[in-house]
């Protein structure tokens, strides 16, 4: 039977090694199948996350031969040529602290998400069925395809290289805010947050995030750049500022100013850090 060799990171926050495993190849096999084969037949202690095995839940993110990928969407077939030269390397996402093997601590993403208030409908639409045209929600729907795999966060150099999780929400949350900011009925002005704690200015449009997005969301072109423009308009366009003051420009005036949410309402409870050996 044809086999393929995988080199899988085994270890925890303290360090680890790459362990090789030989796995039989079946038609249509993906990397996640190979990891499951290892768990079932070679070593039951290998840790990984997964849920849907259909590229819909965003749980199985890892780095395969150096590229941030969903393991359930990475076909062994496509890596066969590379595998002839060297074993396929499977390792955890690099931008997040390692818990064990392929599992990383992604709780930061949930903590930042809890700072972003959900939709606040305009007063005249609250409590009634929304009337919105399809063309006006196409873009928003593109952003809402996000499966929260956090691969874009993993690849973004602001987070990965410079570890500025303190100053930048990251591309995933930019997509989230864009979906709200461009929602025809949302009434919050989200630009101040974007500029301040969101740190949109940290992004220098390298587009690495867009390249890895398994949902093919045009993160940079459709979300981040338009958001940057809106922020710039609000803060740096003197004419716009004047017109808004005079009441000629209404768009921002009808949006409610952003009130910082009590981000302590929701708490992501972290396990007590004692490993039970």
């Amino acid at each position: 039977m044809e086999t393929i060799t995988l080199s899988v990171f085994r270890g925890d926050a303290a360090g680890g090694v790459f362990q090789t495993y030989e796995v039989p190849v079946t038609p249509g096999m993906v990397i996640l199948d190979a990891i499951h084969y290892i768990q079932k037949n070679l070593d039951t202690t290998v840790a990984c996350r997964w849920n849907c095995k259909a590229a819909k839940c965003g749980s199985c993110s890892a780095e395969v031969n150096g590229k941030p990928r969903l393991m359930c969407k990475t076909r062994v077939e496509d890596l066969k040529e590379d595998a002839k030269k060297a074993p396929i390397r499977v390792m955890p996402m690099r931008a997040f602290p390692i818990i064990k093997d392929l599992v990383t601590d992604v709780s930061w993403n949930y903590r930042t998400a809890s700072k972003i208030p959900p939709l606040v409908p305009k007063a005249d639409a609250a409590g009634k069925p929304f009337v919105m045209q399809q063309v006006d929600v196409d873009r928003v729907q593109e952003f809402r395809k996000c499966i929260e795999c956090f691969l874009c966060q993993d690849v973004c150099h602001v987070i990965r290289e410079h570890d500025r999780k303190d100053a930048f929400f990251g591309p995933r949350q930019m997509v989230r805010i864009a979906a709200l900011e461009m929602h025809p009925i949302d009434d919050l002005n989200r630009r101040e947050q974007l500029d301040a704690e969101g740190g949109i200015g940290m992004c220098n449009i390298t587009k690495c995030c867009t390249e890895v997005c398994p949902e093919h969301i045009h993160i940079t072109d459709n979300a981040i750049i338009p958001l940057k423009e809106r922020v710039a308009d609000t803060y740096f366009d003197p004419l716009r500022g004047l017109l808004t003051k005079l009441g000629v420009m209404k768009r921002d005036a009808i949006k409610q100013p952003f009130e910082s949410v009590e981000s302590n309402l929701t708490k992501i409870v972290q396990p007590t850090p004692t490993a039970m050996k």
Partner: protein
Amino acid sequence: MAMEPYDTFEYDVLVVGAGGAGLRAVIAAREAGCSVGVVCKSLLGKAHTVMAEGGVAAALSNMRNPDGGSEGDSWKTHFADTLKGGAYLNNWRTVEIFAKEAPERVLELEQYGAVFDRTPEGLIAQRPFGGHKYRRLNHVGDRTGLELIRTMQDKAVGVGMNIHMEVTLTRLLMDGDRVIGAFGYYRETGRFVIFKAKAVVLATGGWGRMYMYTSNSWEGTGDGLMMGYEAGAELLDMEMIQFHPTGMIWPPGMRGILVTEGVRGEGGFLKNSKGERFMFTPEYTPERYKGQFAETPEEGMKWLDDKKANRRPPELLPRDEVARAIYKEILAGRGTEHGGVYLDVSHRGADYIKRKLPSMYEQFHELGDIDITKQPMEVFPTIHYTMGGIKTEPETCSTTVKGLFAAGEVAAGLHGANRLGGNSLSDIIVFGKRAGEGAAQFALNHSHGTLDAAQLDDEIDLLLSPLESTRGENPYTVHTELQETMQKNAMIARTEEGLKEALAKVLELQERAVHLKVEGDRCYNPGWHAARDVRFMLKASEIIVRCALDRKESRGAQWRLDYPDKDDAYWGKHNLIASDNGGEVKVEPRRLPEMPEELKQVLAEQG
């Protein structure tokens, strides 16, 4: 316990499970003024709800299409369709509440931020679906479940909760006959954790992992169900397990992945190896649907363009009927090379398919190198949904145990013997809310119970023994053998002989599972987790098989080759109830509650 360090948390309401039902319960309990903790086995937002594709069924009557809209739809039609689909085993009151409240719950999602596809008038767009008389599935392309869970996740975070991710609960804590919390462990560290709560909502979803072909993730092991059962809750309709007619069977890497019913809704054909659209075989359309479906492929084709003047093709019969027809075709030797049938939508053209079924197109293209705009898929019925579960009272979703509530797939009563597509998503929002409110009411009227920690000793032993023992079986081996026997003997076509064989095997495996052994330590160790999961699955399997044995008729998902007919006189009026009787499984038939006259009238009017 004294030796074992653990964390303790205290909430008014503890919600177990963070899929759609759990999150909707969180929102409701918070709005009622309670402190809420929510526990999930995975990360937040990864639950099975994301897998739902087709839509959320609610009679909004938004479609004004000349080619067949949804004008004329009402809760009454949705009520009648749901009962008919469930072969009248449903709880009438549950279905009534459901059909009446679903539209309001869907509109509320929009207020929370869900962005549904729109009609030309700018309202929520609805699509036709199997078993629904009108276009009733409010949808977002083919990722409606993702939209629902993300919407409620954001809303729940907004209203405030404590989230405990990657925690597995294994036992409910009791104070006498009342549930006062739950016990389990952190997956990450293996440390134990106790949640004390005035009321507990189980929203833990379904269980399908005891079968080989299943669309369930590793989570679907029935632990929520079995925790409820072990605490004394009655279970209902456990023999009723839905097979999604079109799960992928080839290539093996895609096995079990579902092909949404939307593919058939958008005109997909089912074909056997001879190229025939076998669903048009008259015997595949049961009596109660006669005259409502197209009788020739020509008429079926016309329906695609003019939905008003033509009847829909029989590919859109309810799931149990389609699954059985596929099974019969394969049995008759007209299956594909890999043992399935073909599902083909390529005749709709690449543009149409990419627009209407974008994630299907992409998924097949990227995962299986299959271009569905050009070639057919190979499909086979796959375990998909459990209609049965914890018996709940319709108004507040309370179970037969004090302080314990249940909603969503883990609860039973709404779907009867078979669930209609689209009804699961409306189920979770209607009853998620009611369960949250029910639990909140209970919590506001009760104080915390008293915990006697001695009740945890057994559970801790059970959890730790596979790590400490020097010999014993590998839990994966036991699991695989369980899957083989359930797949062979308790799947779509059942007989007394097969079920008895399955029962004997399950009991043998239960014996063997007393001694399990796993390698490694307690830190994120899937082998260790599997050891506890497999015990839950073994008990749940025993209950499924015993109920399937007792129901001596064919109805909905229960298809007995040795009792091929419906028995309306007796079994049509009885549910099977399973409960724990001092460690033994007790199964008893119980008469369905009598439907009031005015609802019988509604049914008669709806035809």
